[in-house]
């Protein structure tokens, strides 16, 4: 989950910077990211974010999809309340009692993914003969507004001295969840003013509860005034933080032009696994990175792996083909005789630096790490790394250009293939985040004549 849930879950009321930092740090460590740096990226945005953003607060971008801005703890009661809130919002719109625009109903508090909120929200038209508050059928009707106002009137008419306790009503609401049904308690005035007031107070209280959940340390406080106090403090704190941070940034960057290409390009790793002989690999070798599988059955031919960018507006730098990693069957007789023969990246600005290994701190470390890591993999049968790996010097290539396609040719001796299980490439892409477009990459694996 995102950092913000971390902060929300915190119980201490203090929000000093060190606290936040350490939490951030924890979060980062937890996610095994040691360099806390921002990674703004529409490349990522197009990564259809999976439902790990389960709790999605807020705003739909241009009304279409939800922004997965995780701020609330995933909490079913919260969801209910949120849905209720959004319902209330919708309710208030029709009655024109508030100036909140109707799309704000989808705004703040549709935080649950629409899938979740929909079943909670819907209701059917209440039959006046029914004594109970609501029998909302779970459908997907958005406009509770009409129904809400009508129900309100019904509520007024149906019972004057109603014996139903408020608890029951609210319990009903909580369970089935749709709308505000304002029902006068026994002995209370039933004129429209007080009912309206009560409705308004209900609304305010619900929203306050949501705010309480958002501000850390507010859960235990009861009473509007104190909660408001906390909220005010929090907002002031955040605003002050912005000031301080912008001051610090101004100090730090006299010379840095905020040249974003260097600072904020995103790099992505993903693993391409080429499978030979239709082998289904049982090993999960990809370390949790996204995997692309390619099956390649004509294993006696050299193959070309071509990674090209598909959409024209994108600039992917095929930065490094980091590691070419062959895994072998337990048969130890195979020898590896592959090498990267040729790679030719179209549109390169700088000449290709391969085959000399580039001096690159990360990569050296990387190499070392790979060697160590080989021992973990049983498939490699304890073979020493030199057999299993194409040696680092050959396999690393890197260039700095804005080419958006690249070709790698791999040629392998044919003796490899009968035993080769899979070939995995760890590819590092660096993406220019400024271009906000979808990224499609094509991975072509072509065979060639082995002349």
């Amino acid at each position: 989950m995102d950092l913000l849930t971390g902060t929300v879950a915190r119980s201490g009321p203090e929000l000093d910077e060190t606290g936040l930092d350490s939490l951030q740090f924890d979060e980062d460590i937890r996610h095994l990211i040691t360099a806390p740096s921002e990674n703004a990226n529409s490349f990522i945005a197009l990564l259809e974010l999976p439902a790990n953003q389960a709790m999605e607060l807020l705003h739909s971008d241009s009304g279409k999809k939800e922004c997965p801005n995780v701020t609330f703890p995933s909490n079913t009661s919260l969801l209910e309340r949120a849905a209720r809130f959004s319902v209330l919002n919708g309710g208030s719109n029709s009655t024109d009692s508030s100036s909140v625009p109707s799309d704000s109903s989808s705004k703040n508090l549709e935080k649950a993914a629409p899938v979740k909120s929909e079943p909670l929200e819907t209701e059917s038209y209440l039959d006046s003969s029914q004594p109970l508050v609501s029998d909302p059928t779970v459908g997907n009707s958005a406009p509770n507004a009409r129904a809400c106002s009508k129900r309100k009137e019904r509520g007024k008419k149906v019972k004057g001295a109603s014996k139903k306790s408020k608890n029951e009503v609210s319990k009903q609401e909580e369970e089935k969840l749709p709308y505000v049904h304002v029902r006068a308690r026994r002995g209370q005035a039933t004129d429209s003013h007080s009912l309206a007031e009560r409705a308004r107070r209900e609304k305010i209280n619900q929203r306050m509860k949501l705010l309480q959940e958002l501000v850390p340390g507010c859960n235990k406080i009861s009473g509007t005034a104190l909660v408001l106090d906390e909220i005010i403090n929090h907002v002031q704190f955040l605003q002050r933080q912005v000031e301080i941070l912008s001051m610090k940034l101004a100090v730090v960057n006299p010379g840095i032009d905020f040249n974003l290409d260097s600072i904020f390009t995103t790099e992505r790793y993903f693993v391409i696994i080429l499978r030979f002989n239709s082998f289904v690999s049982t090993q999960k070798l990809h370390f949790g990175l996204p995997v692309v599988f390619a099956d390649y059955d004509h294993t006696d031919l050299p193959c070309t792996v071509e990674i090209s960018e598909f959409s024209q507006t994108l600039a992917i730098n095929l930065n490094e083909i980091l590691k070419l990693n062959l895994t072998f069957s337990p048969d130890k007789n195979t020898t590896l005789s592959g090498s990267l023969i040729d790679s030719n990246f179209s549109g390169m600005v700088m000449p290709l630096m391969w085959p000399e290994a580039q001096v690159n701190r990360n990569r050296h470390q990387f190499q070392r790490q790979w060697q160590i890591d080989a021992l973990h993999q049983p498939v490699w049968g304890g073979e020493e790394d030199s057999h299993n790996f194409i040696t680092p010097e050959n396999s690393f290539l890197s260039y700095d250009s804005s080419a958006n396609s690249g070709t790698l040719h791999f040629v392998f001796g044919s003796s490899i293939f009968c035993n080769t299980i899979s070939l995995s490439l760890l590819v590092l892409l660096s993406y220019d985040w400024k271009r906000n477009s979808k990224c499609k990459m094509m991975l072509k694996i072509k065979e060639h004549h082995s002349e």
Partner: protein
Amino acid sequence: MTTMCLHNCIILQLVSLTSHDFLCSCSIQELILSRMRAPRSVLKQQFLKKWMMGLQVFGSAKQSMSILERKKAIKLSADIALASTRDGRTCWSRAIIADASKDDDGKVLVQHLLSPESERLKKASTGLVMENKRVRCKKILKRSFCIKRVRKGASKVVLAKSISKRIVKRRTQVLKSLVPGGEFMDDISLIEETLDYMVSLRAQVDVMRRSLAKATEVVNGK
């Protein structure tokens, strides 16, 4: 041996690279992952992008500015970027943009950041000023007609209630002053706006902090 010249192209479409949690504890992963910058939420990404775009407007002038001016530029572009992520749907964002459009610097930024996007936002921000004036005038009128009643309730409960009401009222006033554009909203929408504003502020702080860390890293590395 005959080898067919099969031109067997396997086309894979790498359409979605999902963001992933790195849960493995392998050392190599740590290394890889130390180079990864995991994506944060979409909101933050948008904000960062717009912020950087805004900063580029200042571009070369940055060298010649004093620290305070730089700070103002940074903050201004951050605020406008934040407001523009909301696309004019919330009151506070419109208020920020309306305020920023008043002076030259802000105007340039606003145009730069917003012109590819919603026209509605720009119209909304210009219309906001007039609307708020009207609202303010109405409220002044109302207050001048309202007579404060002498509290007759002697019971403690009533007294306590009125005291707490006053406190709450005062606090909401403060909150209204904090949230941009807050003075013109009624209670309910004020709370909603606060909610949204707080979330956005948090995202902003987070992004700024990270970029500060990254920038110091770059500077120190040089």
